[in-house]
C-alpha cells in the first residue's frame, strides 16, 4: 500500500525530531573550547577533538558526581521497587480497606509541587544530620518515585494469571516451587520495567539535588553540571558540559534501545504491548 510509506516518512521525521538535539550535543562535545568563542559558530565542529572527554574524566568534580548519581539512583530504585512490589501485589490480588486511599495518595504525590518541600526538608535534614548525604536524597526520591512504581507494577501484576500457581501445585509442586518457577518469571518483566522507569526518575532529578546538597559528597550529575564554571577561568565550559552530558546520556540511550518494548508497555500501563 502506498499510503503506508507516508507513515514511514512521518516516522522518519519524528526520529529526526528526537535525534537532532542529540547530534548537536555530540557536535559541541567534540569541539575544542577555542571554537566556541571564535565568533563564527557552526553546527558541525571545524576541528574534532576528544580532549573534552579526557578532561571530563580526569577531573574529580564529574567523576565524583557520576558516582553519586549512580549510587543514589541504584539504591533509591532498589528500595522503591521492593516497597512498590508489596503494595502492587496487594492492589492486584487482595481486597482491603485503604486500597482506594493508597491509590488516591499516590495520585496526590504525583501532583505534588516538589519545590514547596525544599525549605522544610532543608531545615529538617540539617537538624537530622542528613543534609548533603546520599540518604538525604534517597528519601525524597523514594517518595516521589513510588506513585509511578506502584501504578506500573500493579498494572503488570494484574495481568498475571495467578491461578497458574495453584495449577502447578496441583501438578505436584510445593508452594515455594510454584512461586519460584511460575510466578517469578511472570512478574519479573514488570519488576524490571518499573526499576528502569524509577531509575530514569532518580537519574533526572535536579531540584532536590541542588537544594539538599552543598558539596560533592552527595551532589549528583545534573547539579554538578549546573554549577560547573569551566575547566579554567579562560575556557568556555560549553564543550566540557556537553561532553559530560554525552557520558550521562549514553546509558539512557542504551537502556531505551534494549528495552523499548518493556518501557512503552510500562508507561502505557500495558495498553501498548509491542
Amino acid at each position, binding site marked *: 500500500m502506498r499510503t503506508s510509506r507516508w507513515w514511514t516518512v512521518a516516522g522518519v521525521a519524528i526520529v529526526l525530531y528526537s535525534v537532532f538535539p542529540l547530534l548537536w550535543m555530540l557536535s559541541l562535545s567534540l569541539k575544542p573550547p577555542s571554537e566556541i568563542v571564535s565568533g563564527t559558530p557552526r553546527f558541525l565542529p571545524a576541528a574534532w577533538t576528544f580532549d573534552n572527554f579526557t578532561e571530563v574524566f580526569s577531573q574529580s568534580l564529574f567523576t565524583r558526581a557520576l558516582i553519586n548519581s549512580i549510587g543514589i539512583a541504584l539504591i533509591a530504585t532498589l528500595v522503591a521497587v521492593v516497597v512498590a512490589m508489596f503494595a502492587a501485589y496487594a492492589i492486584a490480588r487482595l481486597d482491603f480497606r485503604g486500597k482506594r486511599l493508597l491509590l488516591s495518595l499516590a495520585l496526590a504525590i504525583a501532583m*505534588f509541587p516538589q519545590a514547596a518541600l525544599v525549605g522544610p526538608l532543608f531545615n*529538617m535534614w540539617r537538624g537530622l544530620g542528613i543534609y548533603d548525604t546520599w540518604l538525604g536524597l534517597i528519601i525524597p526520591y523514594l517518595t516521589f518515585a513510588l506513585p509511578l512504581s506502584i501504578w506500573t507494577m500493579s498494572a503488570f501484576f494484574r495481568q498475571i494469571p495467578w491461578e497458574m500457581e495453584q495449577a502447578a501445585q496441583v501438578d505436584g509442586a510445593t508452594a515455594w516451587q510454584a512461586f519460584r518457577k511460575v510466578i517469578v518469571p511472570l512478574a519479573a518483566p514488570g519488576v524490571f520495567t518499573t526499576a528502569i522507569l524509577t531509575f530514569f526518575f532518580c537519574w533526572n532529578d535536579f531540584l532536590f539535588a541542588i537544594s539538599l546538597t552543598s558539596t560533592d559528597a552527595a551532589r549528583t550529575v545534573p547539579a554538578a553540571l549546573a554549577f560547573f564554571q569551566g575547566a579554567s577561568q579562560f575556557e568556555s565550559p560549553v564543550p566540557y558540559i556537553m561532553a559530560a552530558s554525552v557520558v550521562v546520556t549514553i546509558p539512557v540511550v542504551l537502556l531505551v534501545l534494549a528495552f523499548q518494548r518493556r518501557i512503552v508497555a510500562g508507561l502505557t500501563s500495558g495498553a501498548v504491548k509491542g
Partner: protein
Amino acid sequence: MSVKADDMTTQAAGAVSVSERVKGERRLGMWLTAPSFIVMILVTAYPLGYALVLSLYNYRLTDPGGREFVGLDNYAVILRDPLWWNDFVTTLAITVVTVAIELVVGFAFAYVMFRIIRGRGPLRTAILIPYGIVTVVSAFIWRYAFALDSGFVNQWLNLADFNWFGERWSALFVICLSEIWKTTPFISLLLLAGLVQVPSEMLEAAKVDGATAWQRLRRVTLPNMKAAIMVALLFRTLDAWRIFDNPYVMTRGANNTETISFLAYRQNVTLVNLGMGSAVSVLLFLTVVAIAWVFVKGFKTDLSQVRGDS
C-alpha cells in the same frame, strides 16, 4: 482479582471461617501497603505542615535571633508584591503554551505510532529518548543552540546579534521549546494508550456510513479517548506549572522568566528566608490543589481511571 471463589465453599464450614479469611486478607493488604503509606505521607505531609507553621514567622536563617511570629503578614506581603504576580503570569504563560502545543503535536505523534507499520520499533525507541534524557542536559543543549557565542540558530535564521536570553518573551520561547521537545514524547505515549483502546468496530461502522477521516477523528476517536486525554492533560498541566529545571539552567530566572517553583527555591535555599519562603511554598501548594480541583470537577471523568485501579 482476589481469591473470593473459595469463600463459597468454605461457607458450608461455618460463617466464622469466611470472615476469618476476609479479615486475614485485609490485614495482609494493610501490612503490605503500610511501608508505601508511611514513606509517602511522612515526606510530604509532615514537611508541608512544618512549612505552614514556619510561614507564620518572620524567620531568616542568617538571623536566627530575629525570629518572630507575624501571623499572615508574609502572605499579605507576597500577594501584594508584583514579583509574585509576575512569576504567576510567567508560569501561567509557560503552562498554557506548552500544554496546548504538546497535546496537538503529541496526538500527531501518537497517531503516526499507531498507523506506522514499517519501522515501528525504531520509531518507539526514538520517541523514548527525549523522555530518558536528563532535563538539565536538554536545557543546556537548547540554551547552547540559541546562545550568541555557541549557537547556530542565529546563523541559520540570519538574525545577527539577537540575544534570545536578553528579553522576557524570547527567553520564554526557548524555555518552552526545550520543555516541549522533552515532554511531547511522554504525552504521545499516554495518548497512544488511549488510541489503541478506541473500538475499531465503531471506526469501521463510521467508515461504512461514509464519514470522512476528519469526521471519524472528531466524532468517534476523540470522544472515546476522553479518559486518556484527561490524564495526559492533567499531568502535563501540573508538570508545566511546576517547571524548574529549564528556567534555572537557561536564565536563572533573569529578565522576568522566573517561575513560582523557582521563587520558592530562591527564597528558601538561596536567601534562606525561611519564613517568607515557606509562605511561597504553601501558596504554591494551594495553586496546585486549585488546578487539580478544577480538573476533577471540570472533566467529571471517573477518578478511578486516573488513579489506576481500572
